[in-house]
């Protein structure tokens, strides 16, 4: 057979592509439930990190330590509940939907240790970035954070997720009020006193994106914070063995 004829080449490539597509589609469908369970577990483990809760079995720890998982609208009113029994959480797709939804149902995870965890989600430099912010009872003071990203530059933007000192810098900072709720920039460029952390040098765009994302999401929750935060005294949780490290003071270089 002439394997170099046009007809053969076209038919060959069509068959090849169809076969490969079928194999991949089958594999994707077959493995999807396991993969989704992993992603969910990973999401919950990030929420637990932000809530400063530790445990071996992530799902069991979550069920044990969570007080309530509720949904609130933009005015801070409760509009629904997430099932604790099924460990129901918003994944990234769910968070993405909320950023553009006109009728919002934003997740709030309240833990038994008094920490409330809220998510954030936005666009980084190369792909989405997200995070979970654990707040003290006053809903103003940040206790711990856990950030994640899809594909920020390793060693630069990726540090928002894997540089412990960056996350540690958030501890004890306040969510502000007014136009600027939170800033990620070097001190000289910050307009507020205690509502920001140092950016990472060499990761300017990622850090700016993170600041923007945090602002947007704290904005979503502003009414909820105002309604529910004042009822509890803040001092109880604020002072602890918080180590505030400055990450790196300058962010002069671009990625």
């Amino acid at each position, binding site marked *: 057979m002439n394997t170099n004829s046009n007809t*053969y*080449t076209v038919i*060959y490539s069509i068959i090849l*592509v169809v076969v490969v597509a079928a194999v*991949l589609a089958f594999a*994707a469908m077959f493995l999807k439930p396991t*993969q989704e369970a992993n992603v969910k577990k990973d999401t919950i483990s990030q929420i637990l990190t932000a809530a400063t809760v530790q445990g071996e079995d992530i799902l069991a720890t979550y069920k044990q330590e969570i007080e309530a998982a509720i949904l609130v609208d933009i005015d801070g009113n409760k509009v629904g509940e997430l099932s604790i029994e099924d460990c129901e959480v918003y994944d990234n797709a769910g968070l993405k939907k909320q950023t553009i939804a006109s009728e919002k149902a934003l997740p709030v995870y309240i833990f038994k240790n008094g920490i409330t965890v809220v998510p954030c989600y936005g666009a980084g430099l190369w792909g989405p970035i997200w995070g979970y912010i654990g707040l003290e009872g006053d809903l103003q003071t940040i206790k711990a954070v856990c950030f994640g990203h899809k*594909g920020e530059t390793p060693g630069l933007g990726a540090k928002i997720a894997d540089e412990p000192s960056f996350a540690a810098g958030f501890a004890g900072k306040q969510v502000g009020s007014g136009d600027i709720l939170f800033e990620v920039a070097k001190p000289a460029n910050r307009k507020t006193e205690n509502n920001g952390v140092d950016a990472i040098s060499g990761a300017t765009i990622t850090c700016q994106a993170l600041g923007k994302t945090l602002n947007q999401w704290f904005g979503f929750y502003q009414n909820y914070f105002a309604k529910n935060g004042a009822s509890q005294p803040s001092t109880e949780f604020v002072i602890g063995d918080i180590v505030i490290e400055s990450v790196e003071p300058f962010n002069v270089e671009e990625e």
Partner: protein
Amino acid sequence: MANFDFKETFLNPIFKGNPISVLVLGICSSLAVTVQLKGAFVMGLSVIIVTGLSSLVCSLLRNTIPNRIRIIVQLVVVAMMVILVDQVLKAYAYSVSKTLSVYIGLIITNCIVMGRIEAFALGNKPFASLVDGIGNGVGYAMILVIVAFFRELLGSGTLFGFQVIPQAVYDFGYMNNGLMILPPMALILLGCIIWVQRAVQKDLQEK
């Protein structure tokens, strides 16, 4: 190929014709994933599977592949294998797949895979090609593991995540070498491996 020498086909790419240290292929991924042994190990295993299976499939198809689109056909086969490996890792080794992130996907750009298909699998029988693919994968994985061993040991004081340098040594003032974590040290270690190999195998030295 009647006189197919199993031992030669398998061992040549591991030592004498090692894809990384002799042919200098697949350098970038070897720099990126060798901070920890676990990542290097999984990456090595993934490459072994991809090189082995895609060589096998391409060799099975070798007489039917239209010559004009043979590179594309190879690419499709390799891409399929890489996606399969990526999907399986995401399902059964999620934390590792998160550490390796884009690098699993980038196996497709690894010159070793395409290089072996083009140079060997298209002209040899399936079993010989499978052995050649696996041999090249093992050669790649071996270098990765050696580099990762030194980087993790000297950079973090651990092996496979377990602390191996005792606390007493740290009390004497020993410190983990932070440079080892950074990619340049992988390149330097790789250079050392090539140096040692060339010192041992004199016929590799250029005149």
